[in-house]
């Protein structure tokens, strides 16, 4: 029986090898297949005739060949390893790495989202002669090989919501969180709470989660990975991948395919190579802290040695996180740092941290992400300019501290006291004087009883619905900048003509006077970002900063340099993001604009850095921070993980800004999709959209490509986003400035200078 099992094991290994190499012709594979065929033949002819030594020999041959093949793995082979049904999954890890675990939040099919698995797990360890139990919260995607209800590890929004819920539970109980990223990407349904919105919430919370978080990456596909991947330490399995997009998706974009067509395997292979998705690449770029070696050709559930290794790694990494912020660590911290052997188990650290240690840890995490992706952008600012900027920054910070914190706070307190006293005095006066007035009124009749005469004009002004002469109604062209399209002498049809029977519009009227808004149905035609720069943000009067930050091609992606150069030349910009300081109706604010004409407004390392610096500037100057998204297609895939890492980085920046007491406003226009919406834009408590804009996680093409479901044409419309609670209002383009000013005066933020 044992022999049968061993033969079966060999058969599994052979099919695995064949699957991984996608039937690629290779000498070793052919040899293995031949040898195994011989063995089977012999076994078939006389069962039991296969000797034990012979089996051992062929097993050794398999081991040797696997080691040899392991050195020839291409990135796409690694993708196939990760997707293979024999790959270890989270359940295997829970069974083999932890000493005990309890699934919570549902089990199997009886679960709000079976692809997200949550468990309370325990490490039991003997340290000295004492046994200690250390609790952790395990959160991760479960691919559940072939179980349709697990959806291949693609988490739906409610699954991410569940993950967030239990992160908060871990925070309450002060136990570390271990997250396991096993996902090809999140499932792009927009139903409440919305795929993008939920990932944004997760990132926002993780940015300030006050427990140690350790993430293990096996398969990390963009948004789905980020939803639980923002961690103090990131470990990556050596045969895993971490990428902004699946190689197939990248190939589809590269080839510019219409839905339904398939790309060639060669192009997919090439994209996988160009995206730099392997563990080594990510380690080199600094996006993971450590790579855990797997057995040749990837870990499978029978590799118990690997599970032991993973357990040691998890304990040691958690120890490291804890010891780096613990106040009393003494010799243990050094021991943790130096041990690379099995010794990790013998060092005991309490994983519950004090409040001050937790503060330090969150600060450390935020600083760690801030320092990432420096190499993936070009900073053309000179040394002197940089030094001046740094000095200025310090001066602003000090100035703001003195003016708004030291003096301003006292003044505010005094004002509050006076306000209260005034209200008291008013009441007292009222109480005392009213009876007096009443008596006087009685004694002296006719005193003050005649109603004041109101003129006709006043009545008219107060009762009319709109007053054009006061500027309440929009008349004529009063725009500081009109679109060059308004020079054309022709008409254009409104897309809503079927339903709303809008008459055709004369282009000079439409783009000149009406600001691109159909006067009949209110449809907003897409408008150039310059319109907003000039008419809303007074760009000509404003002060732009970090202009010299430039998008580059950090991965050497083929032909991307020329594309970037073309975009730079066409738009005159160095990246898709423009940051400047301006004043909106006398209120100074920092604005970041993402312009769609530059590579679809996609976000890469330069854009992320500019955005972060803008948020920091707003913090230092105590100013509101406005993100105007003229359009964004998502994360720039050609930058690979350099792009996707901007999701946590910018979210952390935003979180720091909001925590510092700022007001962060987001305004979407035209089309905003994917990464940015699912992170630093989507996490804002105040998000608005210009009418007729589209907002979503994945565009309609991507949705039908990945899930095979066609979505209705109006699926991503702003009013749908509004009704499911993603955005908080829809604005008319002509009223953006007025509404922005109103929001600045009435919304959020305790540290604004003008309050």
């Amino acid at each position, binding site marked *: 029986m044992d022999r049968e099992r061993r033969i079966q094991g060999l058969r599994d290994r052979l099919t695995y090898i064949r699957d991984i190499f996608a039937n690629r012709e290779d000498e070793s594979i052919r040899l293995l297949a031949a040898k195994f065929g011989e063995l089977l033949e012999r076994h078939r002819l006389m069962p039991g005739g296969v000797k034990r030594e012979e089996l051992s020999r062929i097993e050794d041959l398999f081991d040797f060949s696997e080691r040899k093949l392991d050195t020839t793995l291409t990135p796409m082979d690694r993708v196939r390893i990760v997707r293979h049904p024999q790959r270890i999954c989270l359940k295997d890890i829970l069974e083999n790495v932890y000493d005990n675990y309890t699934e919570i939040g549902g089990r199997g099919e009886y679960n709000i989202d079976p692809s997200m698995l949550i468990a309370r797990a325990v490490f039991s360890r003997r340290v000295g002669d004492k046994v200690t139990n250390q609790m952790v919260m395990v959160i991760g995607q479960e691919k559940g090989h072939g179980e349709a209800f697990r959806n291949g590890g693609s988490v739906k929004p409610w699954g991410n919501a569940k993950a967030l819920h239990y992160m908060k539970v871990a925070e309450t109980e002060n136990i570390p969180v271990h997250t396991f990223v096993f996902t090809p990407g999140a499932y792009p349904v927009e139903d409440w709470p919305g795929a993008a919105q939920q990932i944004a919430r997760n990132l926002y919370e993780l940015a300030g989660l006050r427990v140690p978080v350790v993430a293990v990456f096996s398969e990390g596909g963009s948004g789905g990975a980020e939803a639980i991947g923002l961690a103090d330490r990131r470990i990556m399995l050596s045969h895993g991948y971490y990428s902004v997009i699946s190689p197939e998706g990248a190939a589809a974009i590269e080839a510019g395919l219409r839905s339904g067509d398939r790309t060639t395997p060669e192009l997919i292979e090439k994209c996988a190579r160009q995206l730099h998705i392997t563990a080594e690449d990510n380690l080199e770029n600094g996006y993971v802290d450590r790579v855990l070696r797997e057995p040749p050709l990837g870990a499978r559930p029978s590799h118990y040695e690997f599970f032991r290794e993973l357990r040691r790694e998890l304990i040691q990494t958690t120890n490291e996180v804890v010891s780096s912020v613990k106040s009393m660590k003494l010799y243990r911290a050094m021991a943790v740092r130096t041990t690379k052997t099995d010794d990790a188990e013998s060092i005991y650290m309490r994983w519950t941290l004090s409040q001050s240690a937790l503060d330090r840890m969150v600060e450390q995490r935020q600083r760690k992400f801030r320092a990432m992706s420096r190499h993936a952008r070009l900073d053309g600012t000179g040394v002197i300019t940089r030094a001046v900027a740094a000095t200025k920054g310090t001066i602003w910070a000090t100035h703001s501290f003195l003016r708004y914190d030291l003096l301003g706070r006292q003044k505010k307190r005094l004002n509050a006291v006076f306000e209260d006293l005034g209200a008291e005095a008013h009441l007292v006066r009222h109480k005392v004087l009213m009876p007096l007035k009443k008596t006087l009124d009685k004694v002296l009749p006719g005193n003050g009883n005649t109603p004041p005469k109101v003129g006709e004009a006043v009545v008219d002004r107060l009762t009319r619905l709109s007053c054009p002469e006061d500027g309440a109604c929009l008349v004529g062209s009063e725009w500081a900048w009109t679109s060059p399209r308004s020079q*054309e002498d022709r*008409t254009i049809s409104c897309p809503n003509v079927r339903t709303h029977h809008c008459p055709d519009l004369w282009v000079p009227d439409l783009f000149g006077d009406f600001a691109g808004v159909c006067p009949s149905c209110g449809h907003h035609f897409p408008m150039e970002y310059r319109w907003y720069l000039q008419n809303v943000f007074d760009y000509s009067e404003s002060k732009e900063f970090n202009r010299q930050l430039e998008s580059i091609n950090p991965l050497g992606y083929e032909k991307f340099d020329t594309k970037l150069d073309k975009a730079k030349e066409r738009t005159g910009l160095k990246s898709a993001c423009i940051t400047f300081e301006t004043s909106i109706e006398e209120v100074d604010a920092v604005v970041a604009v993402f312009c769609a004409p530059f590579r679809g407004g996609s976000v890469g390392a330069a854009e992320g850095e500019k955005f972060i610096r803008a948020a920091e500037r707003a913090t230092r100057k105590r100013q509101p921070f406005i993100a105007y998204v003229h359009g964004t297609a998502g994360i720039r895939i050609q930058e690979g993980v350099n792009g996707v890492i901007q999701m946590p980085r910018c979210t952390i920046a935003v979180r720091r800004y909001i925590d510092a007491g700022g007001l962060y406003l987001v305004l979407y226009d035209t089309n905003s999709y994917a990464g940015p919406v699912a992170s630093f834009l989507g996490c804002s408590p105040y998000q608005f959209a210009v009418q007729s804009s589209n907002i979503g996680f994945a565009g309609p093409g991507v949705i039908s490509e990945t899930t095979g479901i066609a979505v209705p044409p109006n699926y991503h419309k702003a009013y749908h986003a509004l009704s499911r609670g993603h955005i908080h209002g829809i604005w008319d383009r002509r009223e953006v400035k007025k509404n922005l000013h109103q929001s600045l005066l009435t919304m959020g933020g305790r540290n604004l200078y003008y309050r």
Partner: protein
Amino acid sequence: MLNIKELLDKVKASPYREIVVRAPHTGVVSFAAVKPGEKVHGPRGEFLEKPGTLLAHLTREKNEKPIPAPEKGVIEAVHTQHEGQFVEAGEPLVTIKHYLTRKEVIELILQEALYLFRAPERAKYYFVPEVDQKLKVSGKRSVKVQDGMEFLIVSRMKRETPLAYSGPEGIIYSVYFGRGDNVDEGEPLIGVCPEDQLTVIQDVVARIQSEWEEEA
């Protein structure tokens, strides 16, 4: 009494409908490359989001507007004499012969043969329990309705009122609403068929089902 045979013969004699695509407004016409005898298709996609075959462009005030085919069919005639000319609204541009599908023919005959009872207001409609029971147990054709018979419940905003049937006596032949669906005002709820015509109609429908070739 309706002569179904005659109706069917009429449909059979000309099993298509001629759709004349007219200029929706004034403008200069330029025809797309469609020739008589070519097949065209109507709007497609799950949400009919993909427009039909392009027939022509109409340019007004330098605004070029496509004119797609409204339905599936074969081009009968293209009025090419207008090519490059200014036409007024309503000028016929293309004629499409739309062959009636099996479903359309059945629908056509049923519309003629049945009495359609329409929804008096936008609401959800349910059959009263006895009728519902009967429909479930013995099928659609088992319920007979006569004038004044309360057979439906109108449900709107937690208000449920009975609805009486008004119209000729007959058997419920088809039900046009689903459970829990909101039915707009004026939409047909049920089709009622006089008892003596039931077999005739059933016969005709069965024949169309088996014989009619054109499908959707």
